[in-house]
C-alpha cells in the first residue's frame, strides 16, 4: 500500500469509530419502543425506557381540555386498555374512535404519561377510508 492509502485508511477508521461511538451513545437517547396497547400488556415486564404506543381512543372517559393543554383518555386495543394522561397542545382532531400514537413513559400499571400525541392524518389512509365509505354508500338503498 502506498502511504496515501494507509493514511486514508487510518483516517477512515478514526472517522468510523467516532461515528460508531456517537451511534452507540445516540441509541440510548433515540431508542423508542413501538408497540400496540395489546403488545404492551402481553410483554412480561414493561420496558423502562420511552415508549411509543399505538391504539384507538376509547369512547368512555374521554376528557379533552384543549384550553388547559391536556387530555386524558382511554387507549384501547383488542383486549387491553390504558389510561393516557397527555400534556401539550391537543390536536384538534383528537376524538373518541380515532387512532393515535402516544409517546412517553408508563408511570404505573395502566397509566401512561404522554408528551407526544400523533393523530392519524395520512393521505394514503384517507384515500382508503374514502374508498371504503364510497363503496359502503353503494350498498345503501337509494331513494
Amino acid at each position, binding site marked *: 500500500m502506498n502511504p*496515501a492509502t494507509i493514511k486514508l485508511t487510518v483516517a477512515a477508521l478514526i472517522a468510523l469509530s467516532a*461515528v460508531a461511538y456517537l*451511534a452507540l451513545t445516540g441509541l440510548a437517547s433515540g431508542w423508542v419502543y413501538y408497540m400496540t396497547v395489546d403488545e404492551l400488556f402481553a410483554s412480561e415486564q414493561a420496558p423502562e425506557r420511552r415508549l411509543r404506543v399505538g391504539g384507538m381512543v376509547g369512547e368512555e372517559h374521554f376528557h379533552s*381540555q384543549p384550553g388547559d393543554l391536556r387530555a386524558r383518555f382511554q387507549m384501547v386495543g383488542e383486549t387491553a386498555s390504558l389510561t393516557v394522561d397527555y400534556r401539550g*397542545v391537543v*390536536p384538534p382532531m383528537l*376524538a373518541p374512535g380515532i387512532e393515535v400514537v402516544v409517546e412517553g413513559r408508563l408511570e404505573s400499571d395502566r397509566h401512561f404519561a404522554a408528551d407526544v400525541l400523533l393523530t392519524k392524518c395520512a*393521505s*394514503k389512509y384517507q384515500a382508503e377510508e374514502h374508498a371504503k365509505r364510497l363503496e359502503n354508500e353503494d350498498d345503501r338503498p337509494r331513494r
Partner: protein
Amino acid sequence: MIDLGANSIALSLLAAVAALFAAVMAGRRGDERWLNVGRWSLAAFAVLLGLASLALLNALYYSDFRVAYVASYTERALPAGYRLAAFWAGQEGSLLLWAGILAVMNLVAVRHWQREGLTERATLMGVLALVSAGFAALLMFAADPFRLLPSAPADGYGLNPLLQDWAMLLHPPTLFLGYAGYTIPLAMLIAVLVAGRSDNRWLSIARPWLLFSWLLLGIGILIGALWAYVELGWGGYWAWDPVENVSLLPWLTGTALLHSIIIQQRRGMFKKWNAWLIFATFLLCIFGTFLTRSGIVESVHTFGSSKISELVIALFSIGSIDPRELIAPLIMAFLAAATVAGAAVLVWRRRLLASEHKLEDMVSREGAFLALNFLMVLATAIVLVATIFPVISSSVAQESVRLGEPFYNRVVVPVLLVAIALMAVAPLVGPARRMKEKLATALPRPLIGAALATGLALLAGLSNPWALLCVFIGVLAVLLLATDLIQAARLQQRQNPEPLGRAMLGVMDANHRRYGGHLVHLGVILMMAGVAGSSLFNEKYELQLAPGQQKQAGEYTVSIERLREVRQGHYTAVETTVSVRDGRDRTVQLVPQTRFYDKAEKPYGEIALHSTPVKDIYITLAGWEEGGRRVALQILINPLTMWIWIGSVVLCLGATLGLLPPLLRRAKAHPAVQRSESSSPTTMQVHTP
C-alpha cells in the same frame, strides 16, 4: 375521456415494451432503423402518458366523481387550482406524474445522447424503456388512476386540508423531477459500460442531469420542509420522519456524486466509486417512492400498520385482493430486479472501471472530494439504517424499535457538520502542490478572523459550544469565499480596469462550475446558521389566557382579543387576534386559526407566523374552553429560521448558475480583444462592452 385515459395507460405499456424490443434489436443487428422505431415508441409513450394525464386533469377539473381517484381527493367546492393539483395528492396520480416526467426526460436524453455510438444509443434506450415499462405496468396493474366507482357519489370527499397549500402544489412535482432525473445518468452509465468504453467523455453529458436532478430534488425537499413548518403546526421544518429521510438519501449521494465526477472527468479516478454511486442514487429514488407509499415504516405520510409480511402475502394472492395492495410489492419487486440487473452490469464490466491514477496525496482536490464522499455516504448509510430500524428490529428481535430525533441529531448532525467544515475550505482546494501553498498563505488570515468572531460571540454571551462551532465554520467559510472572489476579481481588474463589482460578476460568469458551487456553499452556510439558531435557541411557551388579559411569555407580553368565527371559502374558522409585545415595546399582531373544513371530519389548526431575519414568532391556537372564556396558545420563538429559506434560495441560484451557459456577452464575444488586451495593456480603452 376516462376511457381515453385508461386506454392510454394500457397502450403506453405497449409502447414502452415496443421501445425495449426495438432497442434490443438495434443492439443485436446494429441497425439504425430499429433505433428509429425505438425513438418513435418512446415518443408514443410520452404522448400516451400525456393524454392520460390530460384525461385525469379533465376528470379532476370537471369533478367527474365516477372516477374513484377524483371522488377520493376532490370536492365540488375545492378551488380549481387545488382540484388540478389533486393530480398528485394520492398514490396513483403521483405514480402517473413520475412516469410522465420520465417519459419526457426519455426523449430529451435520447436527443442528448445522439452523438454516441450505436451500442451506446441502443443500450440507453433499452434501459429507459425498461424503467418506463416498469412504471407503465405499475399504473396498469396496480395503481390505476382511472379506476371507476360502481356509481358516482353526489360529491367527493375533498382534499386533505393539510395538502391545501401552495407548497404542496409544488413539492411532489419537483421531488419527482429529481427522482426521475437520476434515471438518465444511470442509463448513460450502463450504456457506456455495455459498449465496453472506459473513457470519461460521457460525463460531460451526464453531469447536467446529475446537477439538474440534485437541484430539483433539493428544491422538493426544501419546499417540503417549508410546508411542514407553516402547515403542520408543531413549529419545526425537519423531524427526521421516514418520508423526509428517504428523499434526503439520494440527495446526499447526489451531493457526493457532483463532486467525485469532477475528479473522474479531470483525472479518470474514482470510476468504480462513481458508477456504484450513480446506481445507488437511482435505487434510493425508487426506494423513496416505495417507502413513501408502502406504509412499512410509520410516518406522518404513511401512518399505518401494514408490514412486510402482509406485503409478501399480498404478493402471493394476486387476484383475490384490491389491486392497489399490489403497488408496494410491485415497486419492491422492481427495486429488487433493478438491483440485481444493475449490479450484474457493474460487476461484469468492473475492468472498465479501473482508476487511471493513484491517489497520491490526501491534501489535494482528490483527497478533499474523497473525504466529502466518505462523509456523505456515511450519513446516507446511517440515515438509511435508522429509517428502516423499526423493520430491522421487528424482524430480528420481534420488537419494533424506532430511532427518534435525538439519535439523528446526535449521530448525523456531527457528520454533516464535519462535511460543512470541509466545505468551508473548498476555495483553497486544488492540485496537491498549489493547495498546500494556498493553505499556507490564504488560510491563516480567515482562520484568525473566524477565531476573533467566535471570541466576540463568546464575549457577547453565546456559550453553547455547537453554536460557537457554527459561528467559527460560518465565518471561516464566508471569509474564504469572499477572499477568493475578490482576489480573482482583482486579477481581472489588472487586465481590464473596471469597477470591482463588475469584475466580480465577470469572474463568476467565466467559470460557472466553480462559482455556482461557491454560491451553493454560501447557501449551505446560511442554512446552517438558520438551523443552528432555530434548533439551539428556540423558546416554547404554552399560555392560557382570557380575552383582554395579559400574560408574560419570556420577554414577551401576550394578550388576546375575543374569539371570532369567520366563514372563508369552503371552511369556517375560529380565530383570535394575538398581540405580542417584545422587551423593546414593539408589538406584532397575529391571527392563528382553527379551521373546520366542510368536508373534513376533524378541525385543522392554521398557525400564524411573523417572520423576520432575527426571529420567527409562531403561534398556534391550541384550544379554548366552551364559550371562549379561556384560550390556550402555543407560542414558539424560532431565531434565525428565515436564513434557512434565504440560504435555500442562494443554494438554488448557485446550482442554476452551474446549469447555465455563460451569461454576460463579453465573456465569449470578444476573445480576440481580450487576448490583445492582456498582451498590450495600452489598448485597453478600446474595449467597452
